[in-house]
């Protein structure tokens, strides 16, 4: 049994309520931080812990905190990014729905560390019921004196607000989130200036994922070094993984980083293997925007080492043979899944969610989707596969925000690892007309049709 940091108390009845949460040792990190530590001590502990941003990019949280501009004398803000919209990711919802006070405790402690007196939780509009849970939890915390003026008599003031998004994936990008929070259209800003210098209301701002902030109370209660002991190398601590797809036990799991993918997939403690008696075909390890991995690269890296659930191991081999840990949206496919259809589905999502501000993403995502739709529906041409490759390479890296990259990586990886499947769709349009074309006839059975032959 591995160590649980975030979900340790999740099964305690009534943990949603303030009384139970407090009885179980909640809000001790606030007491400890406010009464016996300076803000810089807290930042130092988080730095020592090696905690990395859990939203997807994996940027060290302590370092991000230390960038915040304290010299300007402007008010500072902490914003919690709860706009969890990545297809395949649902860990933050689980955390906020079942143990909301953990996030609020984390927000108070982190805001103290940053010297922020007004902090925000930006939650996606689709999580309306969670929004209400958080509102109630904040009211409870305020009634108990953890928020408001002069918290615990230390002279530290903090107001915490929950703000509801209106259904845009792009608002998970930190600058778009800030724009949206300011009441504007959620378009990403051009960086620099970075939010740490000029963010919300042009004040220094830190934007962190829910899971990142929820890990802070444990780090403060114990120590950064204790946190750093968990995990391997630069991947410290625990990570929530939201597993979905063709596995026996889908759901949210807290794992210690460094667990092997094999154990996570197949042990009964976690996913318990495939839900069907079909073989594993592919894996998306970190939410829809990370590259998909084919079966032979899931458990072993390209140089034959065990693939581990860490930032480094999952990205081992770069994009050629690796992927990314991303936000931890672990999507498993058996051989009935059609990679072309899946890629089209992801592309459709990015087409729908592109904000329309910069040219490559606005025009390119729509183009990708249209071409993939044609291939999936038997209208593809042989040159379309190279066209897709060319379009995605032209979007990547040329956009304002990472949505363009997120839209191109899955397409690139699908073509890189499953090119034969695209060729099959193009060359045998009659066979793929049925929406479930790989259910009766998995690709392995028809692979010989598109195999290169020497006559």
């Amino acid at each position, binding site marked *: 049994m591995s160590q649980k940091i975030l979900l340790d108390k999740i099964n305690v009845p009534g943990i949603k309520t303030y009384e139970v949460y407090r009885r179980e040792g909640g809000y001790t990190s606030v007491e400890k931080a406010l009464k016996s530590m300076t803000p810089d001590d807290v930042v130092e502990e988080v730095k020592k812990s090696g905690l990395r941003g859990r939203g997807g990019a994996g940027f060290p949280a302590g370092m991000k905190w230390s960038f915040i501009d304290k010299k300007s004398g402007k008010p500072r803000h902490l914003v919690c990014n709860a706009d969890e919209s990545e297809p395949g990711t649902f860990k933050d919802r689980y955390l906020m729905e079942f143990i909301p006070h953990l996030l609020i405790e984390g927000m108070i402690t982190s805001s103290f560390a940053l010297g922020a007196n007004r902090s925000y939780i930006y939650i996606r509009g689709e999580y309306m019921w969670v929004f209400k849970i958080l509102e109630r939890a904040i009211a409870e915390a305020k009634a108990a004196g953890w928020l408001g003026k002069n918290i615990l008599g230390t002279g530290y003031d903090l107001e915490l607000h929950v703000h509801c998004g209106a259904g845009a994936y792009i608002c998970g990008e930190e600058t778009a989130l800030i724009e949206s929070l300011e009441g504007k259209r959620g378009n990403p800003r051009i960086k620099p200036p970075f939010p740490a210098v000029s963010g919300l209301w042009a004040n220094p701002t830190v934007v962190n994922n829910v899971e990142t902030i929820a890990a802070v109370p444990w780090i403060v209660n114990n120590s950064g070094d204790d946190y750093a002991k968990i995990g391997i190398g630069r991947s410290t601590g625990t990570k929530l993984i939201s597993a979905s797809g063709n596995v026996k036990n889908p759901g949210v799991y807290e794992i210690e980083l460094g667990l092997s993918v094999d154990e996570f997939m197949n042990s009964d403690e976690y996913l318990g293997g495939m839900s069907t008696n079909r073989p594993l075909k592919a894996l998306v390890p970190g939410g829809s925007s990370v590259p998909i991995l084919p079966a032979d690269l899931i458990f072993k890296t390209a140089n034959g080492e065990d693939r581990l659930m860490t930032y480094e191991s999952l990205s081992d081999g770069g994009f050629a043979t690796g992927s990314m840990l991303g936000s931890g949206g672990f999507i498993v496919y058996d051989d009935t899944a059609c990679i072309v259809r899946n890629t089209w589905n992801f592309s459709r999502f990015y087409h729908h969610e592109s904000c329309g*501000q910069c040219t490559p993403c*606005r025009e390119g995502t729509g183009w990708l989707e249209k071409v993939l739709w044609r291939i999936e529906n038997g209208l593809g041409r042989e040159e379309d596969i190279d066209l897709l490759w060319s379009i995605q390479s032209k979007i990547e890296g*040329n956009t304002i925000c990472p949505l363009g990259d997120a839209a191109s990586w899955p397409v690139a990886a699908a073509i890189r690892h499953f090119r034969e499947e695209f060729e099959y769709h193009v060359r045998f349009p009659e066979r793929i007309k049925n929406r479930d074309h790989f259910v009766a006839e998995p690709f392995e059975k028809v692979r010989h049709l598109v195999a290169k032959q020497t006559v």
Partner: protein
Amino acid sequence: MKVTIDGQEIEVAPGTTILQAARMIGGESVPPAMCYYSKLEKTGGKCRCCLVEVAKGSDADPRPMPKLMASCVTGCMDGMEVNSKNSERVREARQSVTEFLLINHPLDCPICDQAGECDLQDLSFEHGKSKTRFIEEKRTFEPEDIGPNIQLHMNRCILCQRCVAVADQLTDNRVHGVLDRGDHANISTCISKAIDNEFSGNMIDVCPVGALTDKTFRFKSRVWFNKPYNAHRDCDKCCGKTTVWMFGDEIQRVTGRKDVYHEVEEFICNECRFEHKDPADWVIEGPRKFDKDSVINQNNYTREMETVHIATEEGILKGREQDRKKISMTAIPLDQKEQEEFKNGNL
């Protein structure tokens, strides 16, 4: 601060962007800009046409920047080395941005009032290809009437958002903006026909393509058939300094005076732009000069025009003497036999 762009060094003040520095140098290394407008704040960074490669960040931190940077919003650092036209990567990126801008553009230049002074035409002339790889149906929008003076063609729009910046920065109440998102993002008014502001006409001047055009000039002439003159009048609302576009003695269009980067020198009011089409209202200063290579200059009357001679036989278009008689001369009627042959062919 010293900056090197395509091997040319220039001394600039702190806070200058790479694009501004390149414009100070001038010439071929100036990146094209579709959304940046130096007279408007907070424009730029969106179209990605002006991407450049920063080969050396600065003297203090000589590492190159991994991604291509939008030159209009990237500030210069001391000792920075930038590759614009010299870099293969940059040329490729500009080509791809051009392709992206054109896939959903209607390419209706033959009937577009902007043709001839269109930034997108210039961009595709420089960086575009003559072939398309886009076989899908183009994205289109329902036509919308945004007011009495300005014609909106949303299909042509490239969403540079300059017109939004004009409305924000020159007028008090902005009633139009970007609606929807992704490739369906569009410029629209909250209430139809709502744009009614004394300085709204400047949206036409800042629009790099034919998305916003002058209703009083609609389909009147191609821009290169007009003779542009600098003119001014006493105006209590604006500077009154304009370019009038004349055809014979008629003023067909009034615009702001645009510089070499197609940016107006000074914004003008709607009264000057739309209501004074009588030459008596204006003091004509003299011909407006345009770049040598621009389309508008192709019809430059200050230069001697040569008559076109087709190097072919004299009088070839008239046909042979006997043929003309047979076919077209009713004075010489055909006889019975000839009529029959003419009808059925000479079998």
